[in-house]
């Protein structure tokens, strides 16, 4: 199977990750599209025989970080913006909406680690390689991401102890 076919097979996973990362469906698919186009244009940089999935997530992370950086001024306003009128979500939809919002408030480098571990079930080593960071950084970002998410979702503000817990 060639790379294009394997990439097509990975699209649903890229979409799942993107949806968790940015929440809104159309924006998430824009992110996936930009990722695929970029990966396709840079395919010569992909080393055959290595993990294509990890490489695609690396590309997506970079595309996302660039987008967030470009959109920074509006991001800052987000908390002050009035809520857009929406159909009142119920049950699961309510939970998904809360998760969307909580993830949106995490720094991109933390949400990437959390989602690659939780949704993609990547090993910590794979995450370290995909994001090009030391494994210690993977662990501390994972810890911070979870503690923030927990605080936002559960309304608690327990600060995680970052290094040693005695």
């Amino acid at each position, binding site marked *: 199977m060639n790379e*294009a076919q394997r*990439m*097509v097979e990975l*699209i*649903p*996973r890229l*979409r*799942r*990750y993107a*949806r*968790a990362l940015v929440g809104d469906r159309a924006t998430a*698919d824009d992110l*996936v*599209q930009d990722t*695929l*186009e970029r990966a*396709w*244009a840079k395919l010569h940089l992909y080393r055959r025989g290595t993990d294509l999935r990890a490489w695609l997530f690396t590309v997506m992370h970079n595309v996302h970080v660039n987008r967030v950086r470009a959109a920074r001024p509006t991001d800052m306003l987000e908390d002050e913006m009035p809520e857009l009128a929406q159909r009142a979500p119920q049950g*699961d939809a309510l*939970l*998904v909406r809360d*998760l969307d919002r909580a993830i949106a408030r995490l720094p991109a480098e933390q949400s990437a680690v*959390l*989602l690659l*571990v*939780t*949704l993609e079930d990547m*090993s*910590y080593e794979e995450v370290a390689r995909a994001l090009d960071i030391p494994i*210690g950084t993977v*662990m*501390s970002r*994972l*810890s911070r991401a*979870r503690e923030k*998410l*927990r605080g936002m*979702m*559960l309304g608690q503000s*327990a600060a*995680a*102890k*970052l*290094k*040693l*817990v*005695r």
Partner: protein
Amino acid sequence: MSDAPVTEAELQAYADGRLEPSRRAALEAWLAARPEEAERVADYRRLAEALRGAYDPVLEEPVPERLHQALRPGPRLKRYATVAGWLVLGIAIGLVAGWQLHESQPPAPQTADVGATMAHRAAIAHATYSPEVRHPVEVGADQEAHLVAWLSKRLGAPLRAPKLEAVGYSLVGGRLLPGDSGPVAHFMYQCNKGTRVTLYVRTEAASNRETAFRYAKEGNVRVFYWIDRKLGYALSSADVSKDDLFKVANAVYQQLNP
């Protein structure tokens, strides 16, 4: 070894079910003595489940066509150049034809001219939308039933999106367009090489009878058009020869008149 202090990293690994077995007992004993930490780990696991529960359903959703198209061969630059070229052409066709139409308006024998206007509109719509990479259609083929029901409702006539696989084209999707006398349905098809044809469908006044196939060329865009009872059709393409387009037009006609 197993009585080494528990680290935060180990706690995370334990929450993920990835802690090495030799440390598991030590960590569980440590947690047993610290209910708050045990609760924290339990929360992490609940969060992970909530995340998977929230986003795993995305895996089952149909993939929008535009994502497949992102992997189409051909350098992006060329595609953008093509888009720009088509937009310019579309505008040029509009300007020239609009001006000519304006010049030669008044004494208009009915059916032929009505059809020619349709061909002209269809060519512009084709030139405008067929190069579109990101949003070629409003509703994709993955929601074909919805698309057809929606367009039928807006046109006030039962429509069908012909199946053109036999002549090498599959439905990309469709959109609603404004027409001279009401809404217009616009279906887009694509072959596996990426060549697109579009089918423009509008409702016709009762006075317009059936016509044979007619052919028009607007700029680069070739159009076969015909009127069949209450609907007018125009099939356009820029990248297909007249003969090949005729085959597709025939297939459309056969499909709609079984």
